[in-house]
């Protein structure tokens, strides 16, 4: 873990109280006219907290992306959070077995979720005067959509003008997200295993 990453991690941790203050302030009384109506001290404080939040969001995004690719950062940060111990070969074997169990059980769970996300089922009861012999009908099907179109908000007008970017949630559908996770899990496993085998 580099010095910069350590600095960002510490900032993310120590800035949490400021974020709590900001959120509580925002919930209790959101200063709509933060630039005009508030006294100078409070306005400065609101702006400072806002900048802390901007930096915190940027730092979180940086660490989240870097954690995907940097082994040292993952080991330094996530191992502590997940309380994984591998101080010697016996603990490494135990961690390896536990990770294998966790990997396979998560994969099984993801497969179940994928199945539930892809499948559609409809049970219908036909009207009594329907000439067809079967009265109850069950329809089974499968559907897949890559992008969740409902998550897009097509508002072009904001409070103070034209909206350029409005990001509110991850645009992939549940099924697409699960497929992405399964592909990442299996892919990263084979990538690592291949590298370990080649030495």
């Amino acid at each position, binding site marked *: 873990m580099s010095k910069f990453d350590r600095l960002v991690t510490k900032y993310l941790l120590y800035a949490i109280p400021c974020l709590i203050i900001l959120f509580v302030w925002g919930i209790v009384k959101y200063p709509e006219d933060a630039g005009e109506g508030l006294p100078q001290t409070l306005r400065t404080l609101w702006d400072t907290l806002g900048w802390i939040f901007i930096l915190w969001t940027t730092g979180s995004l940086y660490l989240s992306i870097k954690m995907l690719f940097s082994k040292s950062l993952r080991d330094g940060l996530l191992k502590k959070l997940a309380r994984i111990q591998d*101080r*010697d*070969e*016996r*603990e490494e074997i135990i961690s390896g077995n536990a990770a294998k169990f966790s990997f396979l059980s998560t994969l099984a769970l993801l497969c179940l979720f994928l199945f539930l996300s892809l499948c559609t089922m409809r049970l219908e009861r036909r009207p009594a005067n329907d000439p067809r012999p079967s009265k109850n009908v069950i329809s089974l099907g499968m559907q897949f959509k890559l992008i969740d179109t409902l998550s897009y908000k097509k508002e072009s007008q904001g409070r103070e003008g034209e909206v350029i970017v409005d990001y509110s949630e991850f645009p992939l559908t549940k099924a697409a997200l699960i497929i992405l996770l399964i592909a990442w899990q299996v892919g990263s496993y084979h990538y690592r295993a291949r590298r370990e085998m080649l030495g």
Partner: protein
Amino acid sequence: MYNKLYITKSKVYYTFMGKTKLTLDIQNSIGELRAEHQLTQQQLADEIGVTRVTVHAIENGNYNPSLELAFKIALFFKTDLNRVFKVRNKGKL
């Protein structure tokens, strides 16, 4: 406590084509050697670079160390590997 002879037993199963072929009983005399050198489990663990729990697990036969760690233990006690680890039921693979 240190005068007691520690001989522990650990079983190794060799599996071939899904069937267990051979069982090895691996015994170790780490406890005895530790007693000879008047060392605690923690001191031995520090010397060979593992945790105390691992030394305890090896002594009790709950964990078979890697070849590297086995040699480390033997080299630390300045003895032969066969003195530290002994195989009982030798059979055909």
